[in-house]
């Protein structure tokens, strides 16, 4: 019902915007330049190692049409705390592919993007439509977008298990040049999920005096709908000695009663003509889902139950460092310009009501869990 309303309202909104856009006469904008990116990514922390390659290619077919293609792979080896306590460590691969087309008409940029992500037990397919428009002497850019995604969920080792979920997204944003050194943007997005939203492998724990360990496990049960809303304010400031300062603040809440916010400050500093240094700090915190508990008092204690640490009350802090080096012409292909970049993020997670079941202390009195992760991206970008 809510989803249908969203869709109807969204279509009306896009139609109104299209009429508005078609009534404008403006000087043409330009598409972003052609580029190719080859990236290696790695994540290590909390008993998980995820790494793999990604490739992105963007090419203009004409002055008004550009095509993008993207491939990404995750090679996952997991022995995280929730896996160790109730299941066996596992390895798996996830492949993701995207294709997109952009069409520029005067100052209106329209894009369509198709995406598919494949795992042994998860198939996700989605499409996105985005429209953006430069206006007010190109001081303002407005954008609107819609996405729809369909997911098929399976459970390894269980041939009968097959569930589905779907997701609608609608988003809008405004980018505004405020001064000759300052730009700001404001983005909002509403997301509606329905269907099977659990993780089919995860369990909750409850007190059970009838067994020697004193603790029993049963499957998680999530609601079959989730609606969320996020708003983000961003700003970029050009410093007088040629450096850039970035700021983001995002607020989020959803129908599972999770409220979250994150704030990030970044700084980019060129050194000479060929090096750029990047520093960032980001802080995130969220409240728990209404149906989350680290330890339920008995079996089937509630209609909905979760002990997924991502739904608990926690905070994390990220420190990031990046360097980009513009490669000399002698090592670039033909007339192209190339850059090599290395980025490292250190993330520290502290959970406020998720206990480490592998630690001592007695059931329900174990210390709170926490872990840190190192995230690395090494990539080469070629502009042609």
């Amino acid at each position, binding site marked *: 019902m809510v989803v249908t309303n969203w869709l109807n309202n969204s279509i009306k909104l896009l139609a109104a915007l299209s009429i508005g856009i078609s009534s404008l006469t403006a000087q043409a904008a330009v598409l972003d330049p052609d580029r190719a990116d080859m990236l290696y990514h790695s994540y290590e922390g909390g008993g998980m190692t995820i790494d793999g390659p990604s490739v992105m290619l963007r090419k203009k077919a004409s002055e008004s049409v550009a095509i993008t293609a993207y491939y990404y792979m995750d090679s996952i080896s997991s022995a995280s705390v929730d896996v160790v306590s109730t299941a066996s460590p596992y390895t798996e691969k996830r492949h993701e592919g995207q294709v997109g087309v952009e069409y520029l008409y005067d100052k209106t940029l329209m894009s369509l993007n198709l995406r598919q992500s494949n795992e042994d037990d998860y198939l996700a397919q989605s499409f996105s439509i985005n429209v953006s428009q430069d206006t*007010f002497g190109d001081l303002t850019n407005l954008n609107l977008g819609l996405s729809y995604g369909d997911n098929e969920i399976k459970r390894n080792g269980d041939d009968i298990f097959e569930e589905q979920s779907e997701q609608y997204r609608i988003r*809008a944003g*405004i980018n505004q040049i405020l001064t000759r050194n300052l730009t700001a943007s404001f983005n909002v997005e509403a*997301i509606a999920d329905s269907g099977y939203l659990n993780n089919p492998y995860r369990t909750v724990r409850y007190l059970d005096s009838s067994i020697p360990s004193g603790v029993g496990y049963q499957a998680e049960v999530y609601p079959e709908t989730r609606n*969320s809303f996020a708003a983000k304010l961003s700003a970029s400031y050009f410093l007088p000695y040629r450096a850039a300062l970035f700021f983001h603040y995002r607020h*989020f809440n959803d129908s599972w009663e999770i409220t979250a916010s994150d704030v990030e400050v970044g700084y980019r500093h060129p050194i000479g003509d060929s090096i750029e240094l990047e520093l960032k700090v980001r802080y995130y915190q969220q409240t728990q889902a209404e149906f989350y508990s680290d330890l339920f008092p008995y079996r089937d204690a509630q209609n909905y139950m979760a002990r997924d640490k991502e739904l608990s009350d926690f905070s*994390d802090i990220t420190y990031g460092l990046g360097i980009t080096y513009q490669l000399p012409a002698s090592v670039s292909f033909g007339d192209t310009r190339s850059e090599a970049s290395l980025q490292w993020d250190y993330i520290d*997670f502290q959970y406020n009501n998720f206990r480490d079941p592998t630690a001592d202390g007695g059931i329900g009195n174990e210390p709170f869990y926490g872990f840190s992760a190192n995230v690395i991206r090494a990539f080469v*970008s070629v502009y042609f």
Partner: protein
Amino acid sequence: MKTFTLSPRTIALTLKGIALLSIIGLSGCSSMGIEPWVKPYERQNLADPIMRMNRHPSASMHIAHVLEGRESSRGAEGTGGGGCGCN
């Protein structure tokens, strides 16, 4: 349990807000007597590549993917989106 804290009314109001913003933007603030105050020739600082928020798009996509798997917050990244597809 409360299934919808985001009522259809809230969503409708949000959409109307977006529509109003779009109409103001599209009709141009000039209709309200406001002229663009930063001229095209005054934008060389803003056009500097170091000012690009999405300077490295495939790195931004990776960061978003990592965070979406570990945090409940999602949306409004300002970079298109499309869902995580991970469990």
